[in-house]
């Protein structure tokens, strides 16, 4: 009886999980077929053209997009984590004039859709001569209201103020206290925020498409979009490119899912 009841729970979950995975299955399958096989539409079985398809897109320079996305997203993550942590630390540990105002201010700007500044930002980057570099894609993350909000939430709950106090009494400088005491305490939040920003930066499409015009600077999403042109009729290669663009990152995040999932949830549950 208990088993039957459990089955009742498991079946809908299994169905949902299968649905979640199906599109990925077909992308992998597409990557293993030739174009004419794809035209026939039978993708339930894998084919034998995987190596050829992957070769095609590697020759097309797809690895370059990978590297661009990877380092841009990494630096974005690091920048966002540091700046947000410092700001959040200031807002939670100290009592100072304007604190209330600044907190509200940052919270309010979370409501503003980022695209509103897109045109202005693009022109600003032009004036700074930063078009066709990856710097515009990184700089925005130094101004992430979400980052500050996220770390503030964590600090409020998990950094005992007494610890900071006793460090001060021991004569530790303010910045050192921040680096050596506060930062280690909030390591999980830092890890999660890094992963989130990495992901957002990695997935971003709109901004790169306005500030990058040279293909050797493209990031993965732009690369994927351009593929349709480069391989107009090579659907196998398109499948391979999609698979290569999407799967490794999913695998990495699955391995780190413990922290990532916790972190995703933390912002919502505590906020």
């Amino acid at each position: 009886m208990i088993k039957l009841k459990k089955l009742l729970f498991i079946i809908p979950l299994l169905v949902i999980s299968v649905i979640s995975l199906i599109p990925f299955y077909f992308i992998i399958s597409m990557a293993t077929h030739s174009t004419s096989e794809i035209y026939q539409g039978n993708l339930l079985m894998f084919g034998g053209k995987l190596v050829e398809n992957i070769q095609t897109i590697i020759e097309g320079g797809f690895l370059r997009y990978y590297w661009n996305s990877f380092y841009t997203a990494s630096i974005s993550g690091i920048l966002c984590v540091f700046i947000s942590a410092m700001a959040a630390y200031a807002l939670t540990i100290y009592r100072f004039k304007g604190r209330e105002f600044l907190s509200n201010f940052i919270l309010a700007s979370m409501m503003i859709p980022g695209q509103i500044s897109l045109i202005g930002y693009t022109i600003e980057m032009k004036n700074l001569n930063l078009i066709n570099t990856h710097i515009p894609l990184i700089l925005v993350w130094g101004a992430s209201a979400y980052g500050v909000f996220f770390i503030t939430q964590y600090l409020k709950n998990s950094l005992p103020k007494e610890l900071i106090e006793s460090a001060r009494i021991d004569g530790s400088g303010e910045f050192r206290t921040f680096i050596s005491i506060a930062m280690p305490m909030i390591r999980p939040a830092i890890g999660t925020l890094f992963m989130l920003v990495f992901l957002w930066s990695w997935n971003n499409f709109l901004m790169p498409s306005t500030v990058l015009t040279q293909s050797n600077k493209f990031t993965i999403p732009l690369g994927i979009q351009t593929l349709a042109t480069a391989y107009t009729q090579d659907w196998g290669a398109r499948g391979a490119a999609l698979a290569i663009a999407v799967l490794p990152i999913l695998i990495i995040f699955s391995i780190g899912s413990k922290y990532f999932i916790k972190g995703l949830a933390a912002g919502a549950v505590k906020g």
Partner: protein
Amino acid sequence: MKKSINKIAALAIAMTMAAGLIAGCSTKNSESTDSDKSVTQEGSNETVSSDDYSQPLPEDYEGTLTMWGWDDPYYKAVTDAFMKKYPNVKFEYTPMANGDTLQKYQTALATGTELPDVAWSIIDSRAKVFELDMWEDLSHAPYNFDISEVYEYLHPKMVNSKGQVCGIEQSLCPAGIAYRKDLAKEYFGTDDPKELEKMFPDWKSFIAKGQEVYEKSGGTIYMWPGLADAQQFIREQGGKTWIDGTVIKVTENFQRSLNLTCEFRDTNIVDKLEAWTPAWYASFGEGKHIFAGCATWSVPFTIEPNDPEGETTGHWGLMNAPEGNISWGGTTLGISKTCKDKRLAWEFIRFATLSTEGAKALNSIGLLTSAIKPYEEAPELKSFKSKWFGDQDLGAYFLDEIIPNIKSRNMNLDDNVVHETLNLISTTLNNDRNMTADQAMAKLKEELEMKLPDYTVE
């Protein structure tokens, strides 16, 4: 509630603070762009005085040209031939979707980033692209290109509203229709293009025969793969400009093509495939569709790769379309104002579009140069064949039969929007089988009024 007022106040104050910042910055910015401009102008003046553009470059000339494009085989054929002549010249090629041309160029212009040295422009968005402040006028010094060097029907497609020549067509893009010989023999009793042209003088006879085919085959064989490409073909036969001043002449230009498209659909002579989807491409190898629009580039681009059997059976033929042929597609090569080596860019464009050597490279991939002289210098350039078409001389057929039958229309700034809206209507017609031509017309007008509110729609 109190909290949210607080938030909004905070935001407002922040914005006012930053406003001051901006006022200062923006004046600075405009200064810097001005000085940028004068620098480039000086640069170009220098090259003008030091070089004679009418003479060929020395063969050991060194330089690099950048290009963004969407036609890899064309790019490879032409640049390989050019580099054989000028081994020290290099090319940097960035693939770009032709539908993105306008967006990419205008982003580059708005952001002041590098444009390609040699800039391509697809026909669909060309009118707008040619209005961008990025083109060298090729008809003026130092290039002094004489537009009469290329086929006359292309002239209106190479100039912008100010009469500047912003690019030269890569190749002729005449389109007639291709047909499956095996099916034509079976259903019409002949596979000779001349006989078929007699059989199909107009779309009326096309529909009548189509119905016979439909009955004979039990609805398995179609005259044409999809409605959208049929609609496009017919409307381009009109040869009249779409927009006159601030009036979009919808009824005049599209009523007939919409009527015919609906008739095609209602008589079941056209299949339902959406153009440029996998199924549409695949249809060229399936032998279920007798006719399809066929430009020069269709042969290597859509027919050959999708019909593996055709190589040995040669079961395709090319003929004049009922009621005249069209100019389908086409891409120009032009020089951007920011080009770093205009001398070399011009040498390349002249080579690719006007020279006999360039024409030979085009011929090797089944394309016809748009210039007139190469055909006189090397008459063999008039001819090319494809195994898919047996021994029919496609080059000669396109030049002698198809082209004289083309009416070409002038371009307008917002053609791309009209074109896009027509696609929308075709999709709807294809899907909503009960929609009449009049309803489609009404919808087209309504959509255009929404999309282009500054025009009168007639």
